[in-house]
């Protein structure tokens, strides 16, 4: 970028004195060769010195990207050996407790990958651990974006793209989980089949078409495989592409700091510092996954055995990212099913599905909702500290609690056995938590945010309490406050403040219901608020001390 301000640099000047070495001559030749055929220099000029701000939480999206690359690499290895077929075969591999058993080719080939191909088990475990990390890092990345308000204009669209990626990642995860055709995933598919059948009018037929006949059929693994290795990855790659392009167009947000404004980006350039860090980070992520995969078992399908509709294991659960859906099913109280004339309506399935869809819609649309409330049409490139947007942080905390309750419900049986509780009691407690937990979490978070803001304000005005007590000549005791530097103070005083919307009649002298609603939500959001310290207050506080 032409307007990147280069600071005077002391290194690098000396090297130019000598003529280029052989390596440099080759690089020059290659760069010229490529540029004369692709105009690559333009891209390097545009992107090579783009600035990327440094903050640990800005790396979470990269964790997701890198684990996805690890998934693609390890997954490719697995496809060379995996047979996506449900045709029955007799297992003749190494694992004694399954020898001679009839199972699908999918299961048998997965066992062969695990026990008869060197590095196969490692690749399976890398693939699965990377998948868990992929979805988890997307989740954490989304939380970071949410709590810092980094979804505000102009990034609402990229939030939606990221949300789509989250849903696609869950789809990738579920289709992959089902491929080995083991007992655990087979029972998982059976639950999906039951849920689909519970959908009014079309459910029976959708299940029938999906499974190619009656459950389990011989088609589902092959169909899920196509989705898992072709359609869904293509969509993920495309969505990541859009996500990255929008990231470059919008540039990265940054936290408030001295010298940082809404009109600049302060950080390290892509070439060379960020490239080295991000490139190195890829290897670290891959390395951490490899380390875990070589030492910790994941999805031991040999324990589960081949899918058979009759057995089931205690503790049958989906992978963590589908847990919230399984939990929603578990929390339904008895009796939510009724007859509508000759038809059966399964509210015990419909309500959880609706709750999940609504929850996801709220997540996807929140940026537009907040923009409507504030009416703020400006671009925002400074990420909020969560405390400085108390109501948003409270809503986020409520959402996290809601999700966590559903998630915990999916392991109600394990919670019961590990804490020596009755599973019924655990279920009832989580039902209560699902309803009251978000309210409590929201209220508490809101209060905590405002208290933190008050503390920030105190510190900005009067400095840190030093704990040192001094007696004044007049006999009065005071505690000495350490003053802040201007740089430190700036981080505490630089944030946006919104006030509740005052409803005013429109051009025709009317107040619409929409405006009224907006005003009341706006009051709910901003009635309780702490203003940032102003210059006047600062000066007044300082003259107090002198």
């Amino acid at each position, binding site marked *: *970028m032409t*307007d990147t301000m280069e600071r005077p*640099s002391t290194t690098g000047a000396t090297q130019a004195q000598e003529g280029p070495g052989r390596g440099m001559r080759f690089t020059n030749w290659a760069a010229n060769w490529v540029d004369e055929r692709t105009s690559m220099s333009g891209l390097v000029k545009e992107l090579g*010195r783009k600035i990327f701000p440094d903050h640990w939480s800005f790396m979470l999206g990269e964790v997701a990207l890198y684990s996805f690359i690890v998934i693609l690499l390890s997954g490719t290895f697995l496809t060379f050996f995996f047979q996506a077929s449900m045709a029955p075969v007799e297992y003749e591999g190494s694992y*004694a407790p399954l020898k001679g058993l009839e199972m699908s080719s999918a299961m048998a080939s997965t066992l062969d990958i695990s*026990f008869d191909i*060197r*590095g196969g*088990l490692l690749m399976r475990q890398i693939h699965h651990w990377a998948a868990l990390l992929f979805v988890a890092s997307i989740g954490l990345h989304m939380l970071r974006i949410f709590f810092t308000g980094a979804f505000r204009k102009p990034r609402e669209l990229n939030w939606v793209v990221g949300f789509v990626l989250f849903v696609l990642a869950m789809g990738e995860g579920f289709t992959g989980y089902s491929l080995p055709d083991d007992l655990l995933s087979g029972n998982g598919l059976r639950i999906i089949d*039951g849920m689909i*059948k519970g959908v009014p009018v079309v459910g029976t037929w959708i*299940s*029938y078409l999906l499974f*190619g006949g009656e459950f*389990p059929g011989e088609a589902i693994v092959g169909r899920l495989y196509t989705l898992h290795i072709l359609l869904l990855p293509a969509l993920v790659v495309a969505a990541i592409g859009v996500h990255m392009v929008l990231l470059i167009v*919008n540039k990265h947000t940054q936290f408030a700091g001295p*010298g940082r*404004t809404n*009109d600049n*980006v*302060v950080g390290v350039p892509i070439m*060379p*510092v960020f490239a*080295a860090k991000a*490139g*190195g980070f890829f290897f*670290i992520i891959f*390395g*951490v996954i490899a*380390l875990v*995969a*070589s*030492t910790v078992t994941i999805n031991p399908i040999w324990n589960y055995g081949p899918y*058979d*509709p*009759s*057995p*089931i294991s*205690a503790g049958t659960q989906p992978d963590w990212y589908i847990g919230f859906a399984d939990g929603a099913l578990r929390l339904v109280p*008895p009796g939510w099913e009724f007859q509508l004339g*000759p*038809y*059966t309506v*399964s509210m*015990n*399935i419909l309500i959880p599905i609706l709750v999940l869809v609504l929850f996801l819609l709220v997540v996807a649309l929140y940026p537009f909702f907040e923009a409507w409330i*504030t*009416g*703020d*049409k*400006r671009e925002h490139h400074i990420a909020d500290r969560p405390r400085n947007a108390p109501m948003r942080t409270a809503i986020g905390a409520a959402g996290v609690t809601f999700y966590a309750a559903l998630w915990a419900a999916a392991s109600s*049986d394990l919670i019961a056995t590990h804490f020596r509780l009755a599973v019924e009691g655990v279920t009832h407690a989580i039902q209560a938590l699902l309803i009251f937990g978000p309210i409590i979490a929201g209220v508490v978070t809101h209060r905590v945010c405002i208290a933190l803001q008050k503390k920030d304000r105190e510190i900005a005005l009067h400095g840190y309490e030093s704990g040192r007590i001094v007696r004044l000549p007049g006999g009065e005791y005071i505690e000495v406050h350490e003053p802040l530097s201007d740089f430190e*103070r*700036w981080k505490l005083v630089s944030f946006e403040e*919104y006030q509740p919307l005052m409803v005013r009649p429109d051009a025709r002298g009317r107040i619409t219901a929409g405006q009224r609603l907006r005003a009341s939500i706006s009051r709910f959001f901003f009635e309780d608020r702490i*203003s*940032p*310290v*102003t*210059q006047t207050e600062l000066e007044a506080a300082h003259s107090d001390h002198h």
Partner: protein
Amino acid sequence: MADQGSAAPGTAVEKREAPIPSAGTAVVRSDRVENPGFPPYRPRVSDLDPKKERQNERRVAWFFWASIIGTVFAITAYIAFPIVEGDMASVRLNNGLLGLGIALALLSIGLGAVHWSKALMDGHDLVEQRHPTRGSEETRARAAEIFTLGNKESGFTRRKLIRNSLIGALAVMPLPAIVIFRDLAPAADPNALLKHTMWEKGMRLTKDPNGVPIKASDVTLGSVFQVIPEGLYDTEHPLEEKAKAAVLLMRLKPEDLHVSPGRESWNYDGIVAYSKICTHVGCPVALYEQQTHHLLCPCHQSQFDITHEAEVIFGPAKRPLPQLPISVDAEGYLVAQSDFHEPVGPSFWERVHD
């Protein structure tokens, strides 16, 4: 689509200032605290001390050498610790050592590169200016003009007949893409299949998985048998049949059973058979507690009381598990009296509809 009022077709580009976006309900103050500007650069030890710089340089190189060692180790482990057929310890060793070698190779490159960037590359922050995301007014006006020209030259809005018929054609065009998916499943109506299982009058109850028939006298008090129909594995689609026909067989004291009218003959001397497929979403409900006579589904914790014809006492399921009427044949083996009297498994829309 672009704002057509801003530029008439073919007119010269109209220059305008970008409107100042509304701040909404944000409080805009005149006496904000001033941004103090960039703090001074804090030099690192490698900036100040050439010895430390060389030390860091060596450290980075060490990381990369460690990576080479990891790679060599991984290849050595792959060859030196092969999988011995049937020996799970060899699988564990191969997996662990190969993985640790690869992990060392990867982590070392990563740590070396990051250390290089942090300790040795230029540590100054740089500044890049942002521009409003919306295009410049000239660009926007030109874009609007292009659309307008496109519209004018094609007559897209003027020729309503063409436009509307195109929209209609595009709207119906994807329908075949939906229709061709009909053959994902066979032609038969799923409802007929879902309402019947392979159980029929006189069919023996046999043990899962070995198919040994069960005598009434085998089923002692407190026992539970996992049951499949006789000849299940000779059918064309055993898994599909098993997914509907799996049954749980239990013996209770006859006086513990609360039998509703019409079902008096469905049990045999306290031996009862219930579908094992949960009426919620279809998990096998197989956890039988012989003292409480409760059945628990391990997936979503629905509980069924066998003494009260498997009615639901806890959890998301609504309907009791369907009961299979049983009796004994001349040789004393347990047999079904008929198929289930209602569809087994999870509810579906047409469950009671004929």
